């Protein structure tokens, strides 16, 4: 091999880690550019951009929770049902006339407890795979939500309760127009994602979550209490679903039986598109965010272009397969020595 080839090779090798980390962002940027050319007047307008963020707000919470679970090489199929149950509990507590600060906190506690139930079930009952436990609770939580609400929608919450999902941060003091506001849910997404980025990358528990996904035996042999970490992960996942419920309550002003139906699949899809590995130990918070955005922009863009929702399903499915195939190619490329 001559020196020119070597230079080229070492440049490739230097670029690979960046591809691994930021490749998915590249895809996101490409999508934004393409959408902008297809819908130049509308797509990047203030109204539409904030709309996209409002639409992905609660999904982004579910996806983040499922992401942590996937990093441990697990799966949580129950996040949609956790969100629905938390939402129904919120609605019932709100209708019972509880003060807003109690109402706001109930879905968070309910979600956390649902996640705790999953975590304890997986570890204490020694379920052979989290798929089974969370498939069970997918039915259990949604059934419970319907039992306590009678299967009918419960509507009408106060502004305080709706603030996170529906609130607007006025930006007229920046010289912007009244319609150019910042949705509170967008700020919430940013804050939650930054907190969980720090948690996953900077704290010891976050590192252990990655270690468990990389090699659970290594984690166990290192004296890490694997079961305890798993319970924490599933509980946090439930907690995030609870935040999702609170956002959804604000957006729709209603607790309804079909809330979050099949949204666990959207959450899983966002993680996979974002580069998380089903075998655990791989994936980034930034990647999940990109995954959620890609799905959100795709839906939004197709809606703008009046493409039928049937085509949306076909396209989202294709993107999942394509994104993972690109990942396979990238890995081949990365291991070429």
């Amino acid at each position, binding site marked *: 091999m001559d020196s020119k080839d070597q230079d080229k090779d070492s440049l490739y090798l230097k670029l690979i880690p960046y591809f691994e980390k930021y490749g998915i962002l590249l895809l996101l940027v490409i999508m934004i550019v393409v959408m902008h050319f297809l819908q130049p007047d509308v797509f990047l307008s203030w109204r539409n951009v904030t709309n996209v963020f409002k639409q992905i707000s609660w999904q982004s919470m579910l996806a983040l929770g499922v992401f942590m679970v996937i990093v441990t090489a697990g799966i949580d199929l129950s996040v949609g049902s956790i969100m629905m149950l938390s939402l129904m509990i919120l609605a019932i507590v709100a209708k019972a006339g509880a003060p807003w600060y109690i109402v706001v906190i109930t879905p968070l506690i309910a979600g956390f407890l649902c996640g705790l139930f999953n975590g304890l079930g997986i570890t204490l009952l020694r379920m052979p795979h989290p798929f089974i436990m969370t498939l069970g609770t997918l039915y259990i939580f949604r059934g419970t939500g319907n039992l306590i609400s009678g299967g009918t929608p419960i509507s009408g919450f106060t502004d305080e309760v709706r603030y996170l999902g529906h609130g607007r941060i006025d930006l007229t003091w920046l010289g912007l127009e009244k319609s150019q506001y910042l949705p509170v849910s967008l700020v919430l997404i940013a804050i939650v994602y930054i907190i969980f980025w720090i948690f996953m990358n900077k704290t010891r528990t976050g590192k252990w979550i990655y*270690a468990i996904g990389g090699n659970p035996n290594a984690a166990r042999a290192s004296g890490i209490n694997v079961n305890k970490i798993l319970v924490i992960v599933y509980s946090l996942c439930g907690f995030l679903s609870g935040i999702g419920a609170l956002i959804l309550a604000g957006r729709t002003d209603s607790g309804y039986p079909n809330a979050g139906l099949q949204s666990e699949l959207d959450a899983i899809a966002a993680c996979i598109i974002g580069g998380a590995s089903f075998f655990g130990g791989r994936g980034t918070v930034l990647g999940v965010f990109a995954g959620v955005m890609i799905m959100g922009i795709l839906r939004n863009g197709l809606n703008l272009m009046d493409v039928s929702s049937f085509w949306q399903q076909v396209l989202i499915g294709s993107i999942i397969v394509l994104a993972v195939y690109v990942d396979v190619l990238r890995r081949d490329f990365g291991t070429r020595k």
Partner: protein
Amino acid sequence: MSSANQLLLEAKNVTKYFGTITALENVNLKIHSGECLGVVGDNGAGKTTLMKVLSGLYKPSAGSLHFEGKEKVLESPRDSQNLGLEMVYQDLALAGNLPIGENIFLGREPTTNLGLLKFLDYKKIKELTEAHLGKLKINVKSADQKVEELSGGQRQAVAIARSTAFNAKVVIMDEPTAALAIKEVGKVLDLINSLKKTGVGVIVISHRMDDIFAVCDRVMALFQGTNFAESELSNTSRDEVIGWIMGKK
């Protein structure tokens, strides 16, 4: 008795049942500082089970473990680590998705604490890793390299580095050269010899007579879960040890 050959670890009459299977029966083992003990035996003789008992992964059904003369009950690998007892597993027990340094300190990471949250001290991990790898003369491109990118020999070296990062007194190695290319075996054996010089007691489980006769001072054979034979290395021969493995004296 000089500190050079002080008794570090003793297992007395260790018995382990798995259901109706007797994996170990009244097994005894001693290891002194600066000494290397080879443990041989056929598949299923109980070598790995014995090592897992010593590392706290299994609790013995009967018998006791004594560390520096005191009886100890090991509830978990953490307990044995706290005593200075480290295990290098056959399957290496490394997380391939994490860098070298984070593997070496996995479970015992230096942290900066902020209330309940423990933040990893990445700078310290890198410094300590580089210093430790340098001390053991282990060459890798960078402490930030992921373990899955390393060769078998380098992984074994990382696993050994991991076991000695916290002033280990006894290091137990399960088939340390089994998965290695021939040229890498020598490096690992050199590493074992340098550990012995620092006063660490090393227990090597191996099928390979070449390894046993290159680094061990004493060899013991397990046969069907019991002590079968034991000898100073200088008083035995390869053929005799191979005979022990097959249950012949």
